[in-house]
């Protein structure tokens, strides 16, 4: 009788810890997905700012049409990119194009003095930071989730229920230097 009770208690503890580990994995996976959505929100913010920027800058930049076109092209490519790797590459190209646009802006004093440009520049600086920070948060969450998939005993449950590693948002090599859109 006593042995049966002990066995039942042990089974109950075992089942409960299984449930706990499984639920923990699901929660973490949802947090990773939510963090990914956050990056998407910030990337969209940047895509929406670019037409305004182009509108303000284009009148001043008669000789620099090529730089502007590069930004527009990069934005359109980023809009149609899919998947973690594809998005990371396209957004990296857009960051590079924006950086060269602001380098050109440096050479136009009237442009630097323009209030709209200053405001857009602050918005873009902020957006670049938001993208970087939400990416940092996403990667931190992915690291926690992937670690949970690899450590004992949750790795057993994870492989039984088919939990898969999530991909990091890798920074393309061209984007690794800090973004400088500071006109001050």
């Amino acid at each position, binding site marked *: 009788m006593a042995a049966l009770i002990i066995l039942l208690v042990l089974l109950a503890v075992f089942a409960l810890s299984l449930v706990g580990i499984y639920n923990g994995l699901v929660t973490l996976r949802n947090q990773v997905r939510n963090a990914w959505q*956050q990056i998407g929100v*910030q990337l969209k913010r940047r895509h929406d700012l670019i037409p305004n920027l182009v509108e303000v800058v284009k009148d001043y930049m008669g000789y620099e049409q090529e730089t502007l076109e590069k930004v527009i092209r990069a934005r359109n490519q980023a809009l149609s990119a899919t998947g973690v790797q594809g998005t990371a590459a396209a957004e990296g190209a857009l960051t590079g194009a924006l950086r060269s646009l602001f380098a050109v802006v440096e050479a136009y004093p009237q442009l630097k003095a323009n209030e709209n440009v200053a*405001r857009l520049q*602050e918005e873009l*600086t*902020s957006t670049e930071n*938001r993208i970087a*920070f*939400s990416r940092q*948060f996403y990667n931190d969450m992915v690291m926690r989730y992937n670690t949970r998939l690899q450590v004992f005993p949750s790795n057993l449950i994870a492989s039984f229920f088919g939990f898969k590693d999530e991909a990091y948002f890798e920074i393309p090599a061209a984007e690794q230097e800090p973004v400088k859109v500071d006109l001050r």
Partner: protein
Amino acid sequence: MPRVACPTCGYHNSAPAAVCELCRSPLRGEGSGAPAAPPPRARRDFYSEQVANSRDSWVLMAAFVVLVVAVAWVAGEASGLGPAGLLFGVAFGSIGSLLAYYAGDRMVLAASGAVEAAPGREPVLHNIVEELCLASGLPKPRLHVIEAVAPNAFATGRSPAHASVAVTRGLLQKLSRDELQGVLAHELGHVRNLDMRFATLVGILVGTVALLSDWGWRSRRFRGARRSSGRAGGGLVLLALLLAIFAPLASRLIQMAISRRRELLADASAVELTRNPGGLAAALRRIAADPAGLEVANRATQHLYIVNPVKAFGMDSGALFSTHPPIEARIRILESMM
């Protein structure tokens, strides 16, 4: 393990070192003129800084509880109330602190002349805080501006959902965007580390010790004549006298030491959020070098600010009673994380 307290900043060094690990001032011997150039601090990362500071503040907390229990026991014995003395002391000590816990943020903001900032009015401030909330996963705190030229900032509020951050006009005007980001990340670090809650807990303990020592000593004198034949001997009277004098002092010292730990912890948290120790280091240097004084700050609110705004401390800025670690030490730690 022998621990050596630094005479300049109060940091407890774990190894028998010749200079303080925190502020690099010599630990023993005043002589031999100026201290030699400090050896470069070992490279640290924000993670180990946070672990160390978090651990140290809990060790201090444990020391505090021991002190409270000792004082309560002596006060209880001396007054003849026994263990009930502890209960009374904690109850009295808690009331004021809980009031401060729930209404303190509004009181501090009002006393500092802070005005809530509308998003349209301060776009850069709102942008930077929103960026950092993405990095930390915290809800956005309410933002306030103090119309003062001295650059400074503080955070208050009992939980991340009820947090407020206030910055001075001077901070917004004199700091670059990177520096502002460092300062605001430090304030969000306080919010995330639940430092208001921690300070409230410490405040309860300080109040308890003060009340108990005062009260235990008074009751002893009132009852002294009647109880002179009781079990309370001369030794206990002496102990009660010593504790009544030194316990409040000791509790203040521990409180200040905890406050300094929490500042360093918030610095490390700021680096975790921004991954840019240079921004906060530059901001601290600029704030410390600014000659303007902050009139709205006083002894009651000085511990809240990122850099102690009461500049009259002069020589004892590194003393045991200061609420902040020496600014040079904070900058050195930040630079070691670069």
